């Protein structure tokens, strides 16, 4: 239980957010998210002494976030040879700028919130908010379906930060259930992506905006 190491990890997370928002290649973004997930998996150990159940959970998380999901997404990308450029609705620099703003904002908010002394010295809550917002930001600012999945994954990572903060209240089973749900969600999304890529021709695969008033 040492705050400094936790903070370093969380800083990494923040940086990865920035990196994803800045990167213009999809595969890179996917890999980055995977790395983020793996890093976060370690977070659990810093909070309390480990039990074997934690180890079990750790393994599952590594498996799901580190390997299965990225593999799935990359496979889809390859299979439907979606081109690598993630066509932004808002440009890269503005997004990063907004993200930076959101980081500041979240730190500000977190300073206002009542926290346990244990959490006050770590930057866990602000990072959680920041990650959530960056995920949203990615979803809003990029048009392609797959990048939006990436944003979804970022948000999920943010939630994971939070859940790892509250060990004890959330049971192991619940954790696994959550994971599996996310997995199923991403899985179905992957299938849908595949269908999209096969049904639409490359031109309008970019943005799905035919259903409107």
């Amino acid at each position, binding site marked *: 239980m040492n705050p400094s190491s936790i903070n370093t990890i969380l800083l990494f997370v923040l940086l990865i957010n920035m990196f994803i928002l800045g990167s213009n290649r999809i595969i890179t973004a996917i890999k980055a998210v995977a790395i983020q997930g793996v890093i976060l998996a370690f977070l659990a150990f810093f909070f309390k002494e480990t039990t074997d159940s934690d180890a079990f959970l750790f393994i599952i998380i590594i498996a799901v976030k580190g390997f299965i999901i990225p593999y799935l997404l990359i496979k889809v990308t390859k299979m439907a040879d979606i081109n690598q450029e993630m066509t932004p609705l808002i440009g890269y620099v503005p997004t990063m700028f907004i993200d930076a703003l959101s980081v500041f904002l979240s730190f500000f908010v977190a300073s206002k919130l009542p926290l346990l002394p244990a959490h006050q010295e770590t930057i866990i809550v602000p990072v959680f908010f920041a990650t959530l917002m960056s995920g*949203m930001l990615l*979803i*809003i*600012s990029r048009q392609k379906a797959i990048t939006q999945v990436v944003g979804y994954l970022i948000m999920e990572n943010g939630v994971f930060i939070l859940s790892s903060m509250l060990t004890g209240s959330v049971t192991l089973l619940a954790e696994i259930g959550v994971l599996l749900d996310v997995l199923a969600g991403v899985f179905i999304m992957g299938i849908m992506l595949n269908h999209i890529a096969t049904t639409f021709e490359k031109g309008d695969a970019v*943005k*799905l*905006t035919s*259903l*409107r*008033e």
Partner: protein
Amino acid sequence: MFLCISLFFILCSAFLPFFIAKKNPLLCDKLFAFFYSIGALLGLGFIAFGITKGLHVAYTLPFSILFSYFSIKIEMINLLFMIPIYLIGSMSAIYSTSYWSTAQKGLGSSFRYRLYLCLFTISMILLVISDNFIMFITFWEIMSLLAYGLITIDEDSEEAQSAGYLYFIATHTGVIALMGMFAIIQVYFGFSDFSSALGKIDANLAIASSIFLLGVFGFGMKAGFFPLYFWLPSAHSSAPVPISALLSGVMIKMGIYGILKILFMFSNIPHWWGWLIFAIGILSGILGVVYAIAQHDIKKLLAYHSIENIGIIAIGIGLAMLGRSYHNSTLVLFGLAGALFHVINHSLFKPLLFYSAGSIIEKYHTRDIGHYGGIIKVQPYTALFFLIGAVSISGLPPFNGFASEWLLYMGMFKTLFSHQNTLMPVVFGILSLALIGGLALACFVKVFGISFLGNPRKIELSNVKESSLFMLFPMAFLSTICFVLGVFPSIMKDILLDIASAFNQKNIYVKIDTLINLSEAYLWFFMIFGVVLAVVLYQTRGKISKNIGTWACGFSHKTPRAQYTSSSLMQMILDLFGWTLHVKRGAFCSKELFSQKYHFYLHQNDKTIYWLAKISEKFLLFCSKLRTIIHNGYMGIYVLYIFVALILMLLYVGN
């Protein structure tokens, strides 16, 4: 219980005859009319009994239903409003025998028509007798829906469908307002039926005014008060004739009934309510008749006249309310008596007019007055009945329209003596009533003169016969009643007095016996009339030769197109009211060097409806624009909505 039996008969009439409809459609229609009339007769008998005995029934069904209970209450006012339902219902049933015969319209259509007709009547009866709010609104809605079904009974006519749509919107909007009203009453005052709330609600509370306004909106939508009548002309004109008669003669009176019902609930009435209703009445009256003059479609014209008459009734109700708020029982008596008497009269002569118009329309297949002319020679009886209807709706003696307007006039004139100068604006009521009278007279001179007299304009009359007995009988019957009520108006005086004193919530010591004098005066009138008629007939017997054409002041006009048309007859009047009309005038001419044809057109229409239509159109456009902006298809934007909502809610929670 007479009532149940009568309703049962009416219900039977919907089903029984159709077992033989396959073999003998005509007999089936006759049977329908027969059963229905028996039911109606029973009902009328019950009413007569009730009125003479001063019946007062209050009854509650033992079991609970619809989250409440079914309680009925029958008093004078209910009986009064039940009269037209039964009367006009049976008349329409008889009229339909030839107007909507199974042979022409086909079994399915005819069956639906008759079934709706019966249920329509039944629901109105139940509406009038039901005392509980939930019951009331339920039957109200059922009545409205059946009316919708009857208006749009003809699936193929575009016009009927759109009219039905307008009507539908209007009626259900009204129902929603009524729901709000009843909700307020139940929550704030805890009453769940009319009789328990009778005179218990203090109108000085702020919420009471909203009850009143919601009520006026909801019921006025049905009754066709000034801005809310937009559904009425199209619906009345595109429905089948017997149905138009029912709608205009009976259904819109239910709105009046409702307004009276809610007024009964208040212990006192603020001044501005009375003035509001009074003003609405004046507006509806004048505008209604002006728009009617501008119309060429005979059924639309009659529909606008029902707006006018509703205006007159509203004037009466407004007077009664003023009387209550100024503690002037004379005004209450004359106002309410006039209003209710006019309700009855209007429900007599308006169906009469619709029926006779229908018997023309059936022959000529057009509703445009400009095509008629000289009908009196081929359909003398129809013409006679229409004339009677016209005279009575113009409020001319010795017919019933005059009697009720006379009561209203008397009420207003009597206020001149009470030295409350705050009541002085009532004179505007007198003037507008006079104006309405003059205009209505002009309008019906136009209708009668243009369509029945003179030479046929566009349609050849050679092969037209007088309508069948089933059509003539209702007209004859109604015109007789009009005449009798006109000459002996004092038949009504007790029931009117009774209701008025109930409305006043304390006894009224003024009397309306002066109605007797009218009959006396009419006696003299008929005496003189008889003498003069006798003399003239004696003098002119055998001296009449009818073998020349009309003297055309030197011209020799062979063409009937040289006659005065409805628009030219009324143009001088309409010029005075140009500001209320939406006028489109112009001319076509063929573009050759020597133009052969040159023809002008002039359309004058209801400006109110025109503006309403414009506004709603704008609103719809705005809505679809807004929709396209919000639903632009980008999912990022949708997520942004969620995000923004989240942030805003967090901020809201934060402080």
